[in-house]
């Protein structure tokens, strides 16, 4: 039986994600997305990955979702639900969802594919056995500047490329043609 905090945040995450998928208002969808991302960040905390949890809230729930909300505010036309309800695609989506859910349940609950007795099936206490998993940002820093130095440089370069790309993409096409 999982502990109460995990159940609470798992329910929060899945409920907010359902809100994102089901709501017909784009702003409500974005709010559901923020809540779901915060729930995932809480899950990171429960997994002792504190640095990643903080990063998730800062980058995803903060910066990325603000970007989404800006674009929604600028572009979305509010008169969206004028036409009839899309029954056909809703039926297809429901079928896909049940199929996937059944697959996930079978794989992770009933098939026994996830080892129950392997290294730390019950969450290992870090204080009892520090192992390799270092929760502090120090652990990330050491790996990022030794083993993963090249990927780190490439990630930085990728951010630069994205910056230049966004600037060139968001130039006004009308102005360009004139």
């Amino acid at each position: 039986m999982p502990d109460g905090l995990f159940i609470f945040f798992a329910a929060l995450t899945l409920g907010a994600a359902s809100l994102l998928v089901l709501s017909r208002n784009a702003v409500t969808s974005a709010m559901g997305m923020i809540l779901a991302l915060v729930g995932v960040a809480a899950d990171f905390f429960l997994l002792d990955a504190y640095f990643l949890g903080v990063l998730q809230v800062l980058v995803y729930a903060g910066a990325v979702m603000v970007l989404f909300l800006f674009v929604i505010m600028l572009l979305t036309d509010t008169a969206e639900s004028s036409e009839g309800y899309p029954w056909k695609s809703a039926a297809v989506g429901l079928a896909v969802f049940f199929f996937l859910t059944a697959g996930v349940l079978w794989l992770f609950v009933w098939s026994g594919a996830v080892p129950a007795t392997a290294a730390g099936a019950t969450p290992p206490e870090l204080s009892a056995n520090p192992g390799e998993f270092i929760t502090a940002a120090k652990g990330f820093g050491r790996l990022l500047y030794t083993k993963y130095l090249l990927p780190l440089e490439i990630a930085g370069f990728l951010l630069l490329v994205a910056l230049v790309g966004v600037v060139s993409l968001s130039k006004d096409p009308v102005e360009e043609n004139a």
Partner: protein
Amino acid sequence: MEHTTLAHHLLVAGLLFALGLTGVLVRRNLLVVYMCLELMLTAATLALVAFSRFNRTMDGAVFVFFIITVAAAEVAVGLALIVALYRRRGSMKSDELTTLRD
């Protein structure tokens, strides 16, 4: 016995991924479709962190660090593309953007 096992975390990640995929298939608003894509990515990172934690290795967590970086860049470019598309076509619904089909 208050213990969460690896299977519990994987279950949440799998259900989150299923919800995201359903949203991508069902929704017509490109922005919401894009948010659902991000949700699928987040579900994958959750599974990675869980595996990393339960195997007591740091590599999965560092991989998630890079995924968050790349996702931030990807969201910026994708949203710029959607805005450019809206400027040219005046629409953001996936069933109205059918130039390649017609």
